[in-house]
């Protein structure tokens, strides 16, 4: 009898121990009362699936077709300009012996910069545990990929002989193995951009696989079923898979973070390694990175505001998300502003007449208008985001972000053209005037960007469902 009691006693103790062990294991994190829910509190898991996967299953709206038509016609203009360039030569651009780079490289740097927000959101904010990234990372990453594609076209197109672009890859050849110049920043660009594109692509795809599985499981149409079945790689949500998936996601985030820094740093090396006054400045790497994230965030915000409106995603991409993005725009914009000031200061501090001349020429030379557009849009405009009113009123956010994008395009234009057009020997000074082909390529790159983004919206879940489901429980606790 006693033994039985002792057994019961032991069993009870055992039960209590077990329960406390279970409690310890299953304890979920506590959140500060100051934290507000990220997503509309009424959403449940199935709502997320229906809201987001459902978007793909309905036919495209009229608005989508109109936008698609518009972007596609811009893209056609770009294609015409590209054919013109390749057929007749770079002479169709407005370049000359003094200004060897202008619109082409400006567009390249601009788009690469835009391409920095996506990986920043998915990698850096991931590492910093910023959960609000989950609603925006998918579309931001897609934007990154598309922007990098837009950017990647320009270095090839701007070559005199674009059909030989593969010469910048190191491969054994019949020229006694004449390799490539590993000291050239353009070569670094090739490595940086191809790595960045590859890693961003696999990162984006990795995040997409579970969502593609959702789309697969919901698909009724045969073609869609095959499409999503192939892409979702038999994903079944097993914890074993999730566990490794999370590790790799973390690894990729840890890799992508310095990668983001490196890519625009390397792009900045294109300029900073040279000895053109106005190009050679050691602050360029961090300054370009900040500028890239700055313009990228402005572009994500510009894209997401209409997307959330048209696709009814206000519950997922809330004003709080926009507010946070504005804050990052403010931070990076301030770094950009600080870099402008540093450049000005050091320019005068250096006492180097060439440096001083470049600054004065930018402020008052033939391209002063571009400089002041750049300065006001990038250094002053984002400062408005200090005020909450500017971070929460959607039309204001949208207009400021568009201005930032304009400013960042002009920043690259100013850096490239004003430095080149008047450098060391006044005898070679010249003016750059863009041609129709230049403008066509600029416009065409926007066409490609929007066309591809609109296609993305129709093919893939625009919000990372699996990650959003993971942060829903704030609302439920």
């Amino acid at each position, binding site marked *: 009898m006693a033994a039985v009691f002792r057994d019961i006693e032991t069993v009870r103790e055992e039960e209590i121990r077990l329960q406390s062990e279970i409690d310890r294991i299953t304890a979920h994190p506590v959140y500060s009362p100051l934290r507000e829910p990220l997503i509309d509190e009424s959403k449940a898991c199935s709502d997320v699936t229906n809201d987001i996967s459902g978007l793909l299953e309905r036919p495209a709206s009229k608005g989508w077709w109109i936008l698609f038509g518009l972007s596609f016609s811009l893209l056609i203009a770009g294609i015409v300009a590209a054919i013109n360039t390749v057929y007749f030569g770079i002479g169709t651009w407005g370049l000359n012996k003094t200004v060897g780079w202008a619109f082409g490289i400006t567009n390249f740097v601009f788009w690469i910069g835009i391409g920095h927000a996506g990986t920043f959101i998915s990698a850096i904010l991931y590492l910093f545990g910023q959960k609000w990234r989950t609603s925006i990372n998918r579309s931001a990453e897609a934007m990154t990929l598309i922007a990098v594609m837009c950017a990647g076209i320009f270095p090839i197109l701007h070559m005199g002989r674009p059909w030989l672009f593969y010469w910048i890859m190191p491969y054994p*050849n*019949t*020229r*006694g*193995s*004449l390799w490539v110049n590993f000291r050239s920043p353009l070569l670094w660009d090739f490595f940086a951009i191809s790595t960045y594109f590859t890693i961003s692509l696999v990162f984006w795809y990795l995040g997409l696989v579970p969502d593609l599985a959702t789309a697969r499981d919901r698909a009724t149409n045969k073609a869609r079923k095959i499409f999503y079945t192939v892409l979702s790689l038999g994903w079944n949500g097993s914890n074993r898979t999730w566990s490794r998936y999370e590790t790799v996601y973390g690894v990729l985030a840890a890799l992508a973070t310095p990668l983001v820094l490196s890519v625009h740093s390397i792009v900045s090396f294109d300029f900073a390694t040279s000895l053109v006054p106005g190009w050679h400045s050691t602050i360029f790497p961090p300054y370009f990175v900040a500028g890239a994230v700055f313009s990228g965030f402005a572009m994500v915000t510009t894209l997401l505001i209409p997307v959330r409106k048209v696709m009814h995603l206000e519950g997922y991409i809330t004003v709080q998300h926009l507010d946070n993005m504005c804050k990052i725009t403010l931070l990076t914009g301030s770094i950009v502003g600080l870099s402008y000031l540093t450049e000005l200061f050091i320019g005068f501090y250096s006492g180097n007449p060439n440096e001083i001349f470049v600054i004065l020429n930018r402020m008052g030379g033939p391209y002063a208008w571009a400089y002041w557009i750049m300065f006001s849009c990038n250094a002053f405009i984002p400062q408005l985001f200090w005020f909450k009113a500017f971070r929460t009123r959607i039309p204001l956010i949208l207009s400021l972000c568009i201005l930032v994008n304009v400013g960042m395009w002009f920043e690259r234009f100013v850096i490239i053209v004003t430095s080149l057009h008047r450098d060391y020997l006044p005898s070679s000074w010249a003016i750059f005037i863009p041609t129709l082909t230049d403008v066509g390529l600029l416009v065409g790159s926007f066409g490609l960007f929007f066309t591809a983004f609109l296609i993305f919206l129709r093919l893939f879940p625009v919000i990372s469902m699996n990650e959003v489901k993971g942060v829903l429980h704030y609302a439920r606790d």
Partner: protein
Amino acid sequence: MSLTTLKILMILITIIGAFLVWQSRTFRIYGDQLGYEPIQPINFSHKLHAGDNQISCLFCHSSADKSKVAGVPPASTCMNCHSQVLPDSPEIQKITAAIAENRPIEWVKVNDLPDLVAFNHSRHVTSGISCQTCHGPVETMERLSQQNAFTMGDCVSCHRTHREVTLDEAGKPQIAREQTAQKLMASTDCSVCHH
């Protein structure tokens, strides 16, 4: 993927690979003319002249040691001998006719380099490189064919292996050493060929 699919795939890859290796000469890079053997206007045999009869290359290609180009001999060079030797042969008749009509014989150029390469015969011949090094065993050919792909790699590998600069005590390069034909000062500067 089942094991069968995998096997089939492996076999396919092997077959295609083997075919590519076997037929590797079929897939050439652009500009590779190795083995080019055009029909010439006159059925001239290098084997007969340079091989069997041991006529020196420089006898006909007389500018090879003096000038950039080796030179195609004028028709009159042929007639130095052929006015006596086999003057009635139909092939020789063609030369005679060309001389009579005062027109050149339209030889088809076999060993040709693109215009972006400057090759100087005299430099190579003077430093003792035999014609066969680049042109192959011409003395065995009935009809001339290209025996070297003349890729940049071919030139460069030779220039590199013969890159020996001898310096004297004062540190000056000893130019006289060149004439021993063993020590060449083959430069690998791009501008040596590309200008």
